[in-house]
């Protein structure tokens, strides 16, 4: 396999893009990534588009073909991939494989989603398409509900407190204030989070990521070709993917998502690195408690201590393991199919040293994208060329 680099990146803001189609958002992000990479479009041999709910919410499918058409790449194999909220991460991994295998010289990975035009109950039903309708979905469970279950189990097992969980939201919402791509940043107190409107006990409004529109794109190519790029090329050290239990009954407990554990193990094996080598993490904080469990599953925080680390500032931008310096899903919002590529975008800016909420001496970054009730997951590790 050849070494692969990210040569170009692009992203719309995540938030509200009224009356803009998901394919148009994708085209804007893809255009920026192609121009930044400085690569001839004729070198692009594959397009992968991550998207989850465009069919249900907008009635539009074939987004990959539409994107190819919109950016003058008709003729190039264009594939939409879907793995619930991990769709973007999966698209990235496939683009990396296309270049690493030698099948093409450059590939485009794009994630896109339009959601804000629909009401909350309709979006909740669309997201529930990622649940097994014969088990958890049939019981009326929602995603906030799933993480309400996880929270109670975590609190019972490890004594995780309301303050500790709220500390994740406070941190990420504040990080988001520094990120121009994030539209849901806020300066909140622990009490503001705890006192916000209840959604799925014990989760309240500020424990939940917001419904969002947005798109992000990266262009991956060989190390050789990446030298022509405008910005510093970033090495792809691992792009791992896993699948996990399709329903809660497939889990041993509610304290861990096996798909995250497995994808992380694969990514560390692929890169030859360990959690202590990671300088920053962008992980799937769809809910405040999710960041706590994810950080433990990835092995970047000791098991059971995710909440304590957040409250003690150890996962802050200047902490020993900065998590979601971008503001994460909690402050950027979660345009579900775009999120995984959005995380890659953020880590690339960090490793280039150009992020608006810069982590000091960022050499190696990790992204984690989780879908459904833990049915799909990707973990990617990126590195600066000089580390």
């Amino acid at each position: 396999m050849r070494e692969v680099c990210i040569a170009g990146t692009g992203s719309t803001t995540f938030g509200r893009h009224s009356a803009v189609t998901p394919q148009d958002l994708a085209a804007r992000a893809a255009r920026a990534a192609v121009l930044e990479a400085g690569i001839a479009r004729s070198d692009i041999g594959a397009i992968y588009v991550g998207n989850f709910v465009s069919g249900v919410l907008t009635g539009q499918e074939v987004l990959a073909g539409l994107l190819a058409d919109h950016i003058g790449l008709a003729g190039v194999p264009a594939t939409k991939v879907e793995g619930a909220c991990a769709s973007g991460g999966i698209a990235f991994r496939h683009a990396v494989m296309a270049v690493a295998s030698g099948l093409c010289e450059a590939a485009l990975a794009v994630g896109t989603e339009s959601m804000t035009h629909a009401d909350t109950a309709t979006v909740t039903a669309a997201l529930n398409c990622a649940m097994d309708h014969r088990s958890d979905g049939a019981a009326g469970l929602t995603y906030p509900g799933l993480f309400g279950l996880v929270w109670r189990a975590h609190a019972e097992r490890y004594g995780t407190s309301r303050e500790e969980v709220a500390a994740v939201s406070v941190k990420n919402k504040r990080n988001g204030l520094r990120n121009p791509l994030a539209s849901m940043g806020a300066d909140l107190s622990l009490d503001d989070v705890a006192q916000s409107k209840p959604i799925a006990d014990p989760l309240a409004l500020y424990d939940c990521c917001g419904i969002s529109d947005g798109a992000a794109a990266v262009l991956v190519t060989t190390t050789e070709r990446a030298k022509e790029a405008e910005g510093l090329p970033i090495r792809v050290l691992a792009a791992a993917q896993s699948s996990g239990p399709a329903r809660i009954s497939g889990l041993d407990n509610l304290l861990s998502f096996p798909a995250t554990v497995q994808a992380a193990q694969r990514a560390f094996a692929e890169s030859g690195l360990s959690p202590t080598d990671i300088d920053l993490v962008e992980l799937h904080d769809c809910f405040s408690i999710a960041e706590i469990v994810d950080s433990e599953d990835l092995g970047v925080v000791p098991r059971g201590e995710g909440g304590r680390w957040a409250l003690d500032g150890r996962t802050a931008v200047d902490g020993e393991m900065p998590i979601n310096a971008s503001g994460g899903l909690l402050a950027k919002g979660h345009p579900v199919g775009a999120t995984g590529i959005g995380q890659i975008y953020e880590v690339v800016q960090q490793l280039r040293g150009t992020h608006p909420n810069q982590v000091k001496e960022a050499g190696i970054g990790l992204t984690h994208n989780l879908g459904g009730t833990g049915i799909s997951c990707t973990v990617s590790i990126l590195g600066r060329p000089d580390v």
Partner: protein
Amino acid sequence: MVIRRCQSCGHPSVTPLPVCPICLGDTFDAVHQDGNGTCLSWTRIRRPATDFKCAEPFIVAVARLQNGTLVTGRLAQAEAADTALEIGAPVVVTNQANEPPVIRRVRPL
């Protein structure tokens, strides 16, 4: 409650899956068992999806049956008004064809 058991390897499943994930067997028996278990966790759904809107708010719980299997179900409607369900408390799970499992608290005598 009624669960399915793979005729080839005996693997139990609450969800009617087309193929046994352990041995790929495709024939199953319906087996009656008592639904005794304990509450593993619960949440009150205040913002349901469209199909569940009339029922809000309701409680979804996860029970661990005595054989270790986890079951996701709705807390019986009559009990949903009570304030809290304790983790580890004994519960009984029942289910009917084409209906999600229903979880009930076992009250001390």
